[in-house]
């Protein structure tokens, strides 16, 4: 039962990942990525990481994908779609980088001692539920958690810097006056 579910979910993940990189339309790529995240969430459920699976869907499939779609729509990538195709330099750089990543992954998969890993030593079936995760996160891992908070704050500063301009509106004598000023 678990094996069948694993094979189906893996096939979904791999197939949709292949579709992500083979689509010409970036919007279609993003949408295939959503399916990919669903497959990954299913695999998390198989590992017993229920909370992580839900987070995967909320944050990645829900929030980050909306962000990606906005970015793709904002940059209007479908116009530059065909211009940059077929350039040999770009392709060879891509081939070298992905080749190195492949070597890295194969090396780490082959040298990892899987039996000694944390999740293979856990005997508690409930380890991935929100309750267990929360009690660990807010006792043993409190400092990394605070660092995440600071990271999020840094991201907010980044967003504000992106925005660059502050527009203020006020109404004087029934006329709307718009003022623009740089803030970052």
């Amino acid at each position, binding site marked *: 039962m678990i094996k069948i579910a694993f094979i189906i979910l893996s096939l979904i993940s791999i197939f949709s990942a292949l579709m992500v990189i083979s689509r010409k339309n970036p919007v279609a790529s993003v949408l295939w990525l959503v399916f990919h995240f669903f497959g990954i969430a299913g695999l998390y459920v198989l590992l017993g990481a229920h909370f992580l699976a839900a987070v995967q869907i909320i944050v990645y499939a829900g929030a980050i994908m909306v962000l990606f779609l906005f970015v793709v729509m*904002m940059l209007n990538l479908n116009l530059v779609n065909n211009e940059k195709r077929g350039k040999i330099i770009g392709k060879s750089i891509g081939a070298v980088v992905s080749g190195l990543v492949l070597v890295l992954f194969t090396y780490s998969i082959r040298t990892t001692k899987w039996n000694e890993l944390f999740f293979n030593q856990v005997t508690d079936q409930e380890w991935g539920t929100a309750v267990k995760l*929360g009690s660990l996160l*807010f006792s043993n891992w409190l400092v990394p958690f605070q660092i995440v908070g600071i990271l*999020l*704050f840094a*991201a907010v500063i980044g967003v504000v810097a*992106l*925005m660059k301009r502050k527009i*203020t509106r006020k109404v004087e004598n029934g006329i709307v006056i718009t003022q623009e000023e740089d*803030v970052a």
Partner: protein
Amino acid sequence: MLSEYLPVVIQLLIAIGFAAFVLIVTHILGPKRYDPIKHDTYECGVDYYGNAQRKFAIKFYIISVLFVLFDVEVIFLYPWAINLVDLGWQGFWGMFVFLGILTFAILFAWKKGALEWE
């Protein structure tokens, strides 16, 4: 544990199956007549102008980045809320610092006008 998720899969499959069934029925019953005007993009009755898939305002992007950040915050709050009674004061103050940082982030974005929609 795993079998808990089976009804969700069943529910999704039956919903999609129902939608597909209704679509098949409508293709059997409904007419299929091609008309260049009917298959045109609707733009209030006049001829359409340009491509709709155009560049978009950055404010949508800013809202969605802010959403991602605060969504992560809310997600961290849930496991804390479940365990609050067991965690006691240590966990409570831990979350207080985290919330303090994020409240400061909201106030910062607010002050800089990132929450305005113009």
